[in-house]
Structure formats: structure tokens, C-alpha cells
């Protein structure tokens, strides 16, 4: 996890209209909500609430550390910067693509802690402390990931723009166990649009890798 210092606004100014550190301190002081809290908001949380310092507010350019493909990358970004833009515009990791910027196409798919997500709807600041894997981190040196090999072999792309997202999604689809049949893989690969229409080839690639992994 990041240290609180990472999230402290460098210029010390609170967000316009937002609560400052001090106001948090004041508001959370002295109230113990355990008795009224729902069981799911656990007792431990209530205790933490009492003991923990108020959470810092990040506003404006903020230092943050992202763990991308196993490397910690230190950045200074506004909280509104999405993970996709952080990758593409601030780290020159342009493998993750922007196709719609609204979670409607899947071209930006990356793995966060092993799960596939749309990086266009993920804030970079919220991805701190998590393992982020992008298309650039899939191969081991010159050795391609089996899913990359399978996409090459089956011609699972044409223009290549949706491809990084398809491959990341394919990797997750197999590891989730959602590529056991053609029909299942079609459904679980449907969050990635390919306008060139490489779907049958993408399916073949994903199914081949699923078959390899099933054999062990």
C-alpha cells in the first residue's frame, strides 16, 4: 500500500469545496458507531475508525506509485488521471489502447491483481498497491506468452488495435476457467470488440491456450 505521505497534496491545499485533513479529523473524532453499525461494517472497522488517523485527501498533482509489470513506477498525477491515460500518456506504455474511453469496447483491458478490468474507467490513484499487468508485461523477454503465440498462429487480429485488450482478456478468460467450450469462450470474450471481425480466430486462439493449460 502507499504511505499516507504519497497522497498528501504537495502544495498543502485542500480540494476546493472538499474537506481538508483537519475537517476530517474534527468530524471523525469522538464518535463510536459500533452499536448502530450493520453487522457487515465490522467491529474491527469501528475500532479502526476510532484509532486510525483520518485519511488524507489528494488534490491536484499527487505523487503516486504504480506497480506495472513488476516494476514500481513513480508518477505525479492528478487524481482524475485514469490508469489508461497514465499508461499511455505518462509512461509511454501505449500497448493498452483507447477505443471508447467509456468501458464499451475492451481495448484498454489490463490485469489488476490478476483480474481483467477496463483501465479507462480505473483511476490511476486507485490502482496503487496493486499488481498491474499490461500487454507489455506478458512476454518473458523474447519469449511470447502462449496467448500471444496463439493469436499469431490463428491470425487473431487484423488492424491490431483491439489486440492487446483481446489478449489480456484471453489470458484472464482461460485462467478464470471460462474457456472450456467454444460457446463459453465466445460469451466470456464478448467484452472485447473487434471491428475487423477476427472473432473466429480469436476464439481459436483462446481455446487452444485453454486446451494447452488443461493438459497441464
Amino acid at each position, binding site marked *: 500500500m502507499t504511505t499516507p505521505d504519497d497522497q498528501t497534496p504537495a502544495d498543502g491545499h485542500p*480540494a476546493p469545496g472538499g474537506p481538508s485533513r483537519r475537517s476530517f479529523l474534527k*468530524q471523525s473524532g469522538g464518535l463510536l458507531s459500533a452499536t448502530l453499525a450493520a453487522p457487515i*461494517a465490522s467491529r474491527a472497522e469501528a475500532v*479502526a*475508525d476510532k484509532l486510525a488517523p483520518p*485519511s488524507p485527501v489528494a488534490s491536484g498533482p499527487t505523487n503516486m506509485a504504480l506497480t506495472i509489470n513488476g516494476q514500481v513506477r513513480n508518477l505525479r498525477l492528478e487524481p482524475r488521471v485514469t490508469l489508461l491515460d497514465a499508461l499511455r500518456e505518462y509512461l509511454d506504455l501505449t500497448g493498452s489502447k483507447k477505443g471508447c474511453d467509456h*468501458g464499451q469496447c475492451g481495448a484498454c*483491458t489490463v490485469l489488476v491483481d490478476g483480474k481483467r478490468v477496463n483501465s479507462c474507467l480505473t483511476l490511476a490513484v*486507485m490502482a496503487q498497491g496493486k499488481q498491474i499487468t499490461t500487454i507489455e508485461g506478458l512476454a518473458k523477454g523474447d519469449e511470447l506468452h502462449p496467448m500471444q503465440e496463439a493469436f499469431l498462429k490463428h491470425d487473431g487480429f487484423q488492424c491490431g488495435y483491439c489486440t492487446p485488450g483481446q489478449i489480456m482478456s484471453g489470458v484472464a478468460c482461460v485462467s478464470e476457467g471460462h474457456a472450456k467450450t467454444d460457446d463459453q469462450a465466445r460469451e466470456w470474450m464478448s*467484452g472485447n470488440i473487434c471491428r475487423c471481425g477476427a472473432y473466429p480466430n480469436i476464439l481459436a486462439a483462446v481455446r487452444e491456450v485453454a486446451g494447452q493449460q488443461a493438459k497441464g
Partner: protein
Amino acid sequence: MNNFAYTQAASTKEATTAKQADKAAAFIGGGTTLIDIMKSNIEQHSLLIDINRLALTGINDTAEGLRIGTLEHMSTVGEHPQVVQNYPAISESLLLSASPQLRNMATMGGNLLQKTRCGYYRDVAFPCNKRVPGSGCPAQTGDNRTLAIFGTSPSCIATNASDLAVALVALDARLTLENAKGQSRTLPLTEFYKLPGSTPNIETHLQPDELITAITVPAAGHARRSHYLKVRDRASYAYALVSAAVGLDVQGGLIRSARVALGGVGTVPWRVPAVEKYLVGKPATEDTFRAAAALAVRDAAPREQNKFKVELAQRTLVRAFLELPTA
């Protein structure tokens, strides 16, 4: 997006307190709706309060029922073995929603607060009473093929887009809400959503400082034997044209209890209690289901392009009943 501030709340109390202190703040869980609409300039928030560190997770299925922490992701709940087994409609509604990526991100509570797909709401260049109260509703006479036929008003015909909510209203789900004072309350999901009336901008009865913390669903025969069916323009990754969540407890061929809700057709998830009442005591036959379906659309108020939904809703409902596993 405007340059908002961000904080990660350490506790529910801290989150709700921060929200109360700043009228323009918003909670962020998965962000799949919030970031989307902030990018479209539909909403601006001064502060995003990250609730992901809160201890609002957990899926517990007991003899009384199911309890799901608000922060559980759609994907986790959708494939949870006990949800699949005891609340199939909930599982199906989740797995037929959105995409695998979005389901990995979106939280259960956030799903229930997702915004309509009405094209007039989604584009700030159009008038829209939901977005800008009093500006008008061009959808009434415009492109309304995908919009609502139930619960509409002259101010708004936007469809509630959640699949999950349809299954949940059918199965008597309740929400647990917690406020900045640390108080919690529960209310049925059916009473959570507000019909648009003349104030379509107010969509729920959620108070500004309230956070959904959990969803509970009572155990029941009609929940174990429930089903969610979704009809859409493309085979996946699409919103419902019409959907149906049904649950039947059938014994000796007769229906003991029934739960019925429709999706893609209502300004809110559209439960039809009259149909449920009608079904009780009737034989579980196709004839019964057809009569029930006709009753379900009795109050439909379609517009020019969505008249087909009246017919399609009935057929979807009948199909959903027929697809229920035989007792």
C-alpha cells in the same frame, strides 16, 4: 473530468461523514458508472471518496437468507456457488450484465445506482429533465425504442438499466444503508427506487450521507427456483430490450408463491405484484403463464417506437416461466 480531490476512506463512518460534509462529493467503488458519466460531463464532483477499503464485503448464505456486502464485485457474486444454487436469478442477472471486465470492477451497491442508457440523458447537448430539471424530455417523441413503457411520466421515460435490480426486486431484496451518524436502516429495494414523476433527477430514496452497505435477500422456495431471462439486440454486452426475473414455488403442480419483475421496460425495476397474486394457487401451466403475462402489461404506456415491448415483455415472461427447472 473536472479536477476532483480524492480520498480513500478508512471506515464507513469516515466515508459517510466526508460525503455529508461536501454536497458535491461522491462515493467511488468500481467507478464503472461514475467515471463514465463524469467523463461525459453529466456529473461533476468535487471529491471522490474511495470506499474500497471498507469492510463491506462478504457473501453469506444462511437459512434465513443471503447477505451480500455492497463492495462485492458482480463477478464474484454471479459465480458464487450458493448464489448460483439458491438464487439463480441473481446469478444469471449478474452474468448477463455488461462484460467480464466491468463485472470484475463494478460493485453490487454501485450496480443498483447505475445510470440510465437513455441517449438524451447521456449527451449533455440534449434537454433532459433527469440531468437538468425542467429542460424537457425529447425522448417522449424521439428515439425511444429502448425506453420505458412502465412507470413513465411526461417528464421522463428513461429505462432503469440494471439487470441485477430486476432480479433483486423480484426476490424481495432489502438494502442496508448507513449514514454519517452511524445509523443504519434497511428498506426493501422496491421502495428504494423512486418513480420519475415530475422529479426524474431524484432517482432513489438514498439520503446524501447514506451509503449502501449490504444487500439481503430472504431464502425462499421461489428464490431457489428463480430465473432471469434477458432479450437484447446483440448476443452479449448489451442492455436489455426486455428482461424478466421470475420465481415460482410449485407444489403438486400448483403455484404456492410467485415472484415476477420485468427489466428494460420500467423507469424503475418493474415488479408486478398483481401478477404474483394472480399466479398463487394456479396450475403451473403455459396457459396460466400467458394469462399472467397479459396481466403484467396491463398498465403499459408505450411510446411510438417501443410498442413492441408490450408484446415482447409478455413473451419474455412466458418464456422465463417455461424455462424454470421443473420442481
